[in-house]
């Protein structure tokens, strides 16, 4: 029996293309897969999240929720099921919400997040995407 781990499965082609588009856009974008795991955030999102994507890589939903500590604007903790991306994924509907996140640099920032689910050919649930709008 081989000790070599099986390669991780390929990401659906629609999400590969979305990552490429996100890489070229100047607006912060955060992409999760159908299981809620963080797949990618782009360079503009890095400045809000306080770290480079290449330094952290893909994270489980529990890990990214714990890392970025989304909260209400008044500072009250936001239950995971109320986080816009989680709502978009689990309830399959778009959301828009003002909230705070704490970057890995320790800075708390107020943002608005627009999230919506992603469905592919054959009605496959692919994941969800969030666009972040920094609040001055």
């Amino acid at each position: 029996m081989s000790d070599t781990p099986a390669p991780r499965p390929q990401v659906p082609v629609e999400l590969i293309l979305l990552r490429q588009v996100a890489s070229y856009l100047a607006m912060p974008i955060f992409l999760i897969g159908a299981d809620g795991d963080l797949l990618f955030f782009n360079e503009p999102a890095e400045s809000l999240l306080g770290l480079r994507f290449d330094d952290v890589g893909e994270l489980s939903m529990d890990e990214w929720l714990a890392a970025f500590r989304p909260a209400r604007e008044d500072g009250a903790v936001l239950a995971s099921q109320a986080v816009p991306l989680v709502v978009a994924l689990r309830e399959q509907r778009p959301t828009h919400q003002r909230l705070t996140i704490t970057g890995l640099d320790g800075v708390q920032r107020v943002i608005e997040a627009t999230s919506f689910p992603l469905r592919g050919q054959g009605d496959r649930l692919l994941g969800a995407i969030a666009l972040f709008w920094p609040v001055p």
Partner: protein
Amino acid sequence: MKVTLWGTRGSLASAGPETIRYGGNTACVEVRADDGSILILDAGSGIRRLGESIGTPDGPIHVLLTHLHLDHIQGLGFFGPLFRGAVEVHLWGPPSTTADLRTRLGRYLSPPLFPVRLRDLGARLVLHDAPAIATAIGPFVVRADLVIHPGPTVGYRIAEGQHRTLAYLPDHEPALGVPKFPNSARWTSGIDLARDADILIHDAQYSAAEYPSRSGWGHSSTGHVVAFAELASVGQLVTFHHDPNHDDTALDLLHEMAGGTTNVPIQPGREGLSVSV
């Protein structure tokens, strides 16, 4: 299994003395199982001669279409078995959110583009969405997945038995938008179809010099396909979907250059080439 190329040209048939060695017919590949069962990959102009060689088969014929661009379906109306009443032909193609396969094929196989309608063909015709999960088709196990190419387009992974696998991605641009190709395997279109395949038949339409001005048209340079084949750890690469403007001399040169950059064995895709897996 035995794989035979009946059409290797991309985009437009290009018969002439300058393309006589690589061939001028558009995409069509025959896959024969050990028991004689037949799969046909795409229905470009090469399918006409293949149809003549098949005659009236004993069992059903399965035609797997990667997408509905004309160079992949233009031979359907000249595929002899479709006009024979005793034949059962299964057509498989990429799903669409807007219209079923019969409707979309009917746009070509109907007046004014073609004199005979799909419903008027003599053969018993059965249409299917390309299988997103591994599906038995006769002695083969076939799986399709979307790949990067304009419009819904799939590639196929075809296995016979435990250890013989063919990957067919004739129209594919995995390098689209990637600043430095290849990216990681997990983020590369088509990699799960091609991984560890014995033979990979893959789009190699452009030279490195041509690619930048054709980015987004859905095809690969020879350098990209070599990098993709290495990333997928395939046993052998067969180049395919040659540009109609590349004559035999140009293709010889492209393959000579590509072969010098990799340890993956490269077989230039020529009309009439047969490879046993």
